[in-house]
């Protein structure tokens, strides 16, 4: 069972970031409005197929791949583990993000603005694991004077639902701008960040070694993880938390699409400017202090025997203070930034060389930037893309992305529109498809919508 858990953990831990570089600004899909509320969509009306209008899974681990450890290559697994540890960076991160769009809809208003709304569920996990902790576990602490620090240790796990409504409005012929308002309802949250502290051993004065815990300041905040008596995390509990019975928060997305010149488009968005206030079933743990120990100084006084162990424990407890806090707290949502610039070209002609649609270009090339900024972790990715309208019914996008996981991430997306029926599928890290176990990250999004196009 333990082995199975480790395998699932490693297999599951291939990728992350919430960067949806293939889906961003792709094919005028309604879901692009979630990535840029100022995106241009030419819909009159859309409704997502409930529960499958967007299924999104992203996962990653920057440290090593499943294949690095479990390749059936005749090399002893302990050698491969040692190599993985040796190649481990100063800090590696592991993440998982899953979104499920439960409801999605939108329609064009009389003033030509597009109103969209919906509800989605999101599970988000991120852990930053410093090398010092890996070395302490793997090699131990026999390296004298080496400081094993938790300064970069961070962790975030949360499950929540998001109700949102947004408006994309044409400001003038060149500019489209939009905003989306969000209400977050959290089921649970656990996070630790901005920790400090180190452990080290140095040569002692009175004994061979002195061991130190220095400047320890660790805080783990949780909400909805430890439930009050009488509460069970059953289906009705989770449902009520998703539907605004949980800890609530507010958020805002802003975005734009700008046409500086004919055939050139610049877009940008900032997502999740917001917070969640956690006040239900809150339990947080704080550890603070400094401590040093040289060992037990034996007194050899039978008339006044020392209680060495309990004295040491008392000194430790007084020096390193563990507090349990029940105070509500606020966390800021990780802010995501998207930006792109693209150039469209190639128009469609009929057999007599007449232009079929002067507004439609068949190809688009461009550059995208994505960044996620939070106290736990920040992330940057750059993408080159080529988008091609294969036919009236089929559109595709191919991306090349450089990010902390890889400099060879090729992604692709397909969107098909048959009447009002729309289906799309996008995935990245396609080069790793020849060996999925060797992928350090992977993501896909797929969904089904019903879209009525706007005739103008």
């Amino acid at each position, binding site marked *: 069972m333990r082995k199975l858990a480790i395998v699932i953990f490693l297999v599951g831990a291939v990728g992350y970031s919430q960067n949806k570089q293939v889906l961003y600004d792709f094919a005028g899909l309604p879901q692009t409005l979630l990535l840029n509320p100022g995106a241009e969509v030419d819909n009159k009306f859309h409704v997502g197929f409930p529960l499958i209008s967007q299924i999104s899974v992203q996962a990653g681990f920057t440290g090593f791949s499943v294949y690095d450890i479990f390749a059936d290559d005749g090399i002893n697994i302990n050698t491969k583990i040692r190599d993985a540890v040796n190649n481990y960076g100063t800090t590696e991160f592991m993440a998982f993000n899953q979104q499920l769009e439960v409801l999605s809809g939108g329609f064009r208003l009389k003033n030509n603005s597009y109103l969209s709304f919906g509800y989605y569920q999101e599970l988000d996990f991120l852990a930053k694991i410093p090398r010092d902790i890996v070395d302490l576990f793997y090699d131990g602490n026999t390296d004298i004077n080496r400081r094993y620090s938790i300064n970069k240790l961070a962790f975030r796990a949360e499950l929540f639902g998001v109700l949102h409504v947004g408006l994309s409005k044409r400001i003038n012929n060149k500019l489209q701008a939009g905003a989306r308002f969000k209400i977050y309802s959290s089921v649970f949250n656990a996070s630790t960040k901005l920790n400090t502290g180190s452990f080290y051993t140095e040569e002692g004065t009175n004994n*061979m070694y002195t061991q130190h815990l220095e400047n320890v300041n660790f805080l783990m905040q949780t909400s909805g993880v430890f439930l009050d008596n009488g509460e069970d995390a059953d289906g009705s509990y989770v449902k009520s938390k998703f539907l605004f019975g949980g800890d609530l928060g507010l958020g805002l997305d802003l975005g734009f699409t700008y046409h500086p010149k004919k055939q050139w488009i610049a877009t940008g968005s900032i997502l999740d400017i917001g917070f969640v206030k956690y006040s239900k079933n809150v339990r947080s743990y704080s550890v603070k202090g400094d401590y040093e*120990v040289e060992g037990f100084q034996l007194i050899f006084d039978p008339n006044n025997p020392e209680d060495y162990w309990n004295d040491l424990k008392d000194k430790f407890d007084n020096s390193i203070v563990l507090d349990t806090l029940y105070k509500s707290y606020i966390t800021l949502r990780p802010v995501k930034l998207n930006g792109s610039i693209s150039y469209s070209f190639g128009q469609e002609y009929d057999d007599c060389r007449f232009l079929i649609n002067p507004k439609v270009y068949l190809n688009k090339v461009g550059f995208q930037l994505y960044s996620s900024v939070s106290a736990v972790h920040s992330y940057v990715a750059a993408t080159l893309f080529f988008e091609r309208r294969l036919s009236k019914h089929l559109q595709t996008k191919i991306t090349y992305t450089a990010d902390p996981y890889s400099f060879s991430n090729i992604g692709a997306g397909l969107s098909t529109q048959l009447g009002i029926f729309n289906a799309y599928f996008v995935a990245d890290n396609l080069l790793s498809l020849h060996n*999925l176990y060797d992928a350090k990250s992977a993501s896909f999004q797929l969904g089904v919508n019903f879209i009525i196009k706007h005739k103008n």
Partner: protein
Amino acid sequence: MKFFMNPNKIIATLIILFSLHSCTKDVDFNQLDDANIHTTYLVTLVHLNLTAIKFLNEFNQEIEFTQDVIQAPIEVNSEPYLEKVEFTVITENTFDRNFTFNVIFYNEFNDPIYFLQPVITVPANSSELITVIEIPKEDIAVIYDTKYFGFSLFLSQSTDGSVLSASDIATLDLKSSVKLFFNYKKL
């Protein structure tokens, strides 16, 4: 703009190639059975700095034996993984008398269950001496029944009939640490 080949065909070919290419190379998760991680933790241990007065009773008569005990903070959860325990003891003695230092493990009924061997002998007027003592793998289990560590010091008699006095400035120093060798296997 003209492509040398129809771009639709290029894209369709790429997508088919990627789709057909999708597979995994051989992996063997049973290798976990052979995995083991050898980790060594270093812990500072007991130290002492004793003068002549510790070997005299209230009548200033020599006592040849003194002892002390420490409750054992043994973590039973580590039992399957602890493979070796290695003590390092550094002694220095400016007394012109020999000492022997014993470490005895006691169970919850105060019965001695293990004697750390060899006994540490500290010769008279000896400068820094390093002694390494190992608890072998076959004896490791005894640690988990240990509730107290007992430390005994024996002062040998002088060969010339001299006795210690409270004004002696000689000292017996002892420093120690322990290395715990773990083997995390069968993850």
